[in-house]
């Protein structure tokens, strides 16, 4: 297949990205506005020998995905707010058992059933903290149909590299809108690693020095025991050992935290001389960038930071990007989630929130007004 240009929805782009990245199993449950991901991948998967199954709920969907991963395939699911809430139990299980998988969360108006056909960014904190306990995940935020494709591919590679659940935090607007995308003939695909050691020597839950651990499949002769209980390097339950628990959970967090710079994808625009910096992620980055260029046209020294990865939080990159700016405006489609993270990181800088809920994106004019409102420029 050659390079293809298509005019498709973001949700279809996510499904196509998954297939290109080697996804061969999808366990899902229909939920607006994510359903087109399932509908499209249900068409594509059998053509590449892969399996689609619609499960009885989102808990079962992610359970089936985890099972398929341990059978040796790459697997994913897609959902939205209420379904994402149900998946939290198994997100924690996947983090604890270091099961690589991808979840596309097409965010809608929340909480509860709220606005099934309207966009939001209200699951950003749930992505980070939704399951109980200390753990780390990786989350990307696409703002275009092309990014829905690219970030889904990226998500599979990051999942394999760090043996961690990776979330593509899409939303109703980017999921449903159509744009032209270019699908390359080939994308970089990171293969899962088999251990060098034989079954007698291999420790399935021993930390690899660089964070990437080998992971054989069930049926390969390694006779692994995988449990959500606190376990030792062999995978055996060791739930009453305080030191063992500390070492395990610390390692699960550190394998992401210590690689934050490597994982982070952040784009800076006009930040070099910026006195005010606008920071956003996902779909509101588009009106934000427009507002920033409008401000530049008016002679204002305004810069823009676009977070393509939101978790782990790219603290260092943001600090560098903000540089000597006095004011930062965080633009997000909720009543303040990532805003508090930015505030935490930038002590001494005035961090302001431009929230929006209801389903519509901020207008460039609104953002420009916020830039000018208290900017003192």
């Amino acid at each position, binding site marked *: 297949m050659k390079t293809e240009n298509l005019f498709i929805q973001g949700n279809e782009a996510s499904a196509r990205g998954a297939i290109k990245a080697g996804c061969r199993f999808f366990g899902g449950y229909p939920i607006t506005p994510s359903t087109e991901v399932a509908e499209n991948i249900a068409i594509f998967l059998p053509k590449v020998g892969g399996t689609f199954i619609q499960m009885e709920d989102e808990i079962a969907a992610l359970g089936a995905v985890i099972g398929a991963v341990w059978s040796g395939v790459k697997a994913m699911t897609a959902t939205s707010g209420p379904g994402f809430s149900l998946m939290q139990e198994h997100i924690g299980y996947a983090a604890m058992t270091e099961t690589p998988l991808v979840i596309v969360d097409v965010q809608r108006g929340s909480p509860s059933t709220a606005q099934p*056909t309207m966009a939001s960014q209200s699951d950003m904190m749930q992505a980070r903290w939704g399951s109980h306990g200390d753990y780390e995940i990786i989350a990307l935020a696409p703002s275009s149909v092309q990014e829905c494709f690219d970030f889904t591919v990226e998500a599979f590679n990051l999942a394999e590299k760090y043996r961690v659940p990776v979330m593509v935090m899409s939303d109703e*607007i980017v999921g449903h809108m159509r*744009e*032209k995308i270019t699908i390359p003939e080939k994308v970089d695909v990171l293969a899962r690693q088999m251990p060098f050691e034989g079954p007698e020597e291999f420790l399935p839950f021993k930390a690899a020095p660089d964070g990437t651990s080998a992971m054989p499949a069930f049926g390969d002769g390694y006779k692994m025991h995988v449990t959500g209980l606190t376990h030792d390097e062999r995978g055996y339950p060791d739930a009453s050992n305080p030191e063992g628990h500390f070492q395990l959970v610390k390692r699960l967090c550190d394998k992401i935290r210590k690689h934050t710079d490597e994982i982070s994808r952040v784009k800076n625009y006009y930040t070099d001389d910026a006195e005010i910096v606008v920071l956003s992620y996902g779909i509101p980055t*588009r009106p934000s960038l427009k507002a920033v260029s409008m401000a530049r046209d008016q002679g204002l020294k305004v810069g823009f930071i676009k977070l393509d990865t939101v978790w782990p939080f790219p603290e260092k990159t943001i600090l560098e990007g903000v540089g000597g700016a006095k004011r930062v405006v965080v633009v997000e489609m909720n009543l303040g989630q990532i805003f508090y993270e930015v505030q935490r990181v930038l002590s001494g800088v005035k961090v302001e929130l431009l929230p929006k809920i209801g389903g519509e994106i901020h207008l460039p004019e609104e953002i420009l007004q916020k830039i000018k409102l208290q900017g003192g420029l």
Partner: protein
Amino acid sequence: MRKEIRIAGFGGQGIILAGIVIGKAAALYDGLKAVQTQSYGPEARGGASRTELVLSDEEIDFPKVQSPDILVAMSHEALIKYLDDLKDGGTLIVDPDLILEDEIRPFVEEHNINLYRAPATRTAQEEIGLAIVANIVMIGAITAITKVITEDAARKAVADSVPPGTEKKNFSAFEAGLKMV
């Protein structure tokens, strides 16, 4: 050049497909940037239907329509609902058999609206013998009136958007729409 287009009518008229075809023509065959969005309601059939397009020769930062340059109304309800948003001096294309023109005449005059009448539904029924291709007739009319996409790109986009085996009828529908102006 940033052009905002809104096409509205009721469910079953193929409104969304019309938006997709124009978006495809612009993005895949005319070398423009295009974003197509649509309204989602809980109704599976009937009800109001709306699609919007932003076409530009530059990257499209804001993907939604704010104030359309072009409004295409295929129902009176849609016409009344969206007319106020149309830019002064904008283009209004209506299917004259589905709207009551008297109601909008003062607005059209006051805001210097360029009004075009494209009887897409009647043409589809009488010339093609198929009411369901009214949307393709309308694409022809939009192409001819607004020139936001080229005829050639529109033909290609129609070809790869309609079900296999229906190309001939759809091409005739498109040509009939072109000739309306």
